[in-house]
């Protein structure tokens, strides 16, 4: 009987093993992006921008051209790269510490200018690389190393809902939120990433896919419990959904 490979590592990923902790969903999202790039046949024309944070070494894992931006500045760098090379597909890969704290100005203005770039936004409600401190996206009451009694919104304010915020900008074409907790939600996230890249290829404007992710290590949970925590707690505060899909993007489907 003939045996065929039905699932294997995509070409747009290198063979390098990642430095991510066991069960961290960064690896899942890397793979989804790579699968979409393979599927669209755009590996030779795609440029990724890596952030500062846990994904700082993403350039070792994507088998394509990747630039490294200063903390939070990936959308600014993507703007420049895309404007001088409009035939390229340019995406940023950013965590919440990078995008929703130090990089808030860059992301809001890139979206508002309608830059024809794509942002994959990893929201895991914590600063991962630096040791699990409170991020702007940390949930009310969530215990982190810098909020040992839980985030007190009277002192630390409220978590930022990035997809909802970016969806209010006129330049945004496609803004959605997904999670990667089960094969089915992972498939839905992949579809969204594909549509975001397609929107860019059709020159429709700014696209952002926010992905609720897990950080088992800094949450103090095992990988399975961490995914349950995403579904029960994160998805409650950050509802999944399509926050802005312009008609031209809808017709891409």
């Amino acid at each position, binding site marked *: *009987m003939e*045996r*065929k490979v039905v699932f294997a590592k995509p070409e747009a990923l290198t063979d390098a*093993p*990642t430095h991510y902790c*066991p069960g961290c969903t960064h690896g*899942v999202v890397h793979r989804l992006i790579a699968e979409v790039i393979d599927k669209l046949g755009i590996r030779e024309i795609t440029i990724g921008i890596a952030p500062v944070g846990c994904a700082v070494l993403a350039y070792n894992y994507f088998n394509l051209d990747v630039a490294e931006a200063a903390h939070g500045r990936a959308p600014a760098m993507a703007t420049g790269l895309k404007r001088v090379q409009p035939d390229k597909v340019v995406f940023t890969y950013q965590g919440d510490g990078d995008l929703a704290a130090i990089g808030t100005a860059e992301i809001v203005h890139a979206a508002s200018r309608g830059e024809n770039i794509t942002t994959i936004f990893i929201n895991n409600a914590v600063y991962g690389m630096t040791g699990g401190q409170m991020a702007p996206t940390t949930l009310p009451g969530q215990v982190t190393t810098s909020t040992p009694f839980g985030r007190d919104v009277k002192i630390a304010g409220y978590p930022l809902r990035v997809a909802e915020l970016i969806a209010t900008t006129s330049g945004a074409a496609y803004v959605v939120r997904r999670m990667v907790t089960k094969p089915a939600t*992972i498939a839905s996230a992949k579809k969204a990433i594909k549509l975001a890249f397609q929107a860019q290829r059709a020159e429709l404007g700014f696209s952002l896919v926010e992905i609720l992710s897990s950080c088992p290590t800094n949450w103090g949970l095992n990988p399975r419990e961490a995914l349950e925590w995403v579904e029960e707690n994160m998805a409650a505060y950050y509802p999944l959904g399509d926050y802005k899909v312009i008609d031209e993007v809808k017709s891409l489907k």
Partner: protein
Amino acid sequence: MAKGTILIDEDRCKGCELCTTVCPFGLVHIANHFNAKGYRPSTLVDPEGKCTGCTLCARICPDVAITVYREGV
């Protein structure tokens, strides 16, 4: 039923156990030995050839450690 099998790259595996939670037939388990990184890798235990090659275990793996094969496709 489609027949399939999986190959786990033990040295990529970090023993996170996520693949063991999604197999519809409970065929993926954590092994009793350690890999080069010091993790206990996952392993396929399928004496009756129940694996259908559905790819669910591979799709949840954060480390792309699983390759899935299907017969006669």
